[in-house]
């Protein structure tokens, strides 16, 4: 019983990791819009480019989120099966879809919603398969 609770809590953590992942992508993109495109024909300006990247506040927030997110992912893997954690982390597809609709006001086609629904259904199946196993181990 206790193990089931833990699994649900961990799944909540994985969802949070995915949310952080979508968030840092957003911050990095925001930062790089300020920094501007990298000019491959002028490699002498690479130092100048790096300077602009690392003096940008958005980028630093993004990098900070990456560190937090990585540590959380390591904590998750210390507790549960990779074959559960990794499929469940596909919820990032759903978050990207929701961000596209509500923050960026993009039009999302019907097949994308159907795909997203399938992903959620698949995550639910994988999550149930881990509860199944937890119930078995407490029985024996």
């Amino acid at each position: 019983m206790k193990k089931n609770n833990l699994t649900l809590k961990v799944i909540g953590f994985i969802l949070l990791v995915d949310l952080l992942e979508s968030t840092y992508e957003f911050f990095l993109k925001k930062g790089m819009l300020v920094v501007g495109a990298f000019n491959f024909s002028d490699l002498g300006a690479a130092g100048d480019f790096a300077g602009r990247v690392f003096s940008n506040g958005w980028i630093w927030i993004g990098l900070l989120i990456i560190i937090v997110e990585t540590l959380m992912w390591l904590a998750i893997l210390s507790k549960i099966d990779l074959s559960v954690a990794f499929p469940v982390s596909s919820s990032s597809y759903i978050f990207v879809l929701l961000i596209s609709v509500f923050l960026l006001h993009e039009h999302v086609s019907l097949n994308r919603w159907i795909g997203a629904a399938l992903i959620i259904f698949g995550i639910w199946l994988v999550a149930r398969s881990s509860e199944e196993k937890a119930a078995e181990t407490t029985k024996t």
Partner: protein
Amino acid sequence: MVKLLLLILFHDLILANGQTLIKRGMQTLGDVNLMSLVGFWHFIKFCATNIKVWSGLALNTVSLCLWMIILSFADLSQAYPLDSLQYVIIAVLAKVTLKEKMSPLRWTGIAVIVIGIIIVGIK
């Protein structure tokens, strides 16, 4: 197309091996209460000094570079669905190298997720 498929396969193999390595490093941590200050500090020290975790993170970085190379020439709408192969490779590696118990329910769930990703990626 062959070039894209090969690169994606390569990318997914490196990514999957990276995740497996991280998992192998992290499962030796043992039962640590992350909510306590002592436990959390132990966790941080463990991550920072574990060679398997670092190797796994390095492989992840390599796979990210490969992904950028892929995106530099391929359409995202083509590369993204193909890349869902990583879910299958990780499941197989988890079963073979980590000896995780894969029930039919878990395989079904992973298959449904892959189909969902492919449908999301189709224009």
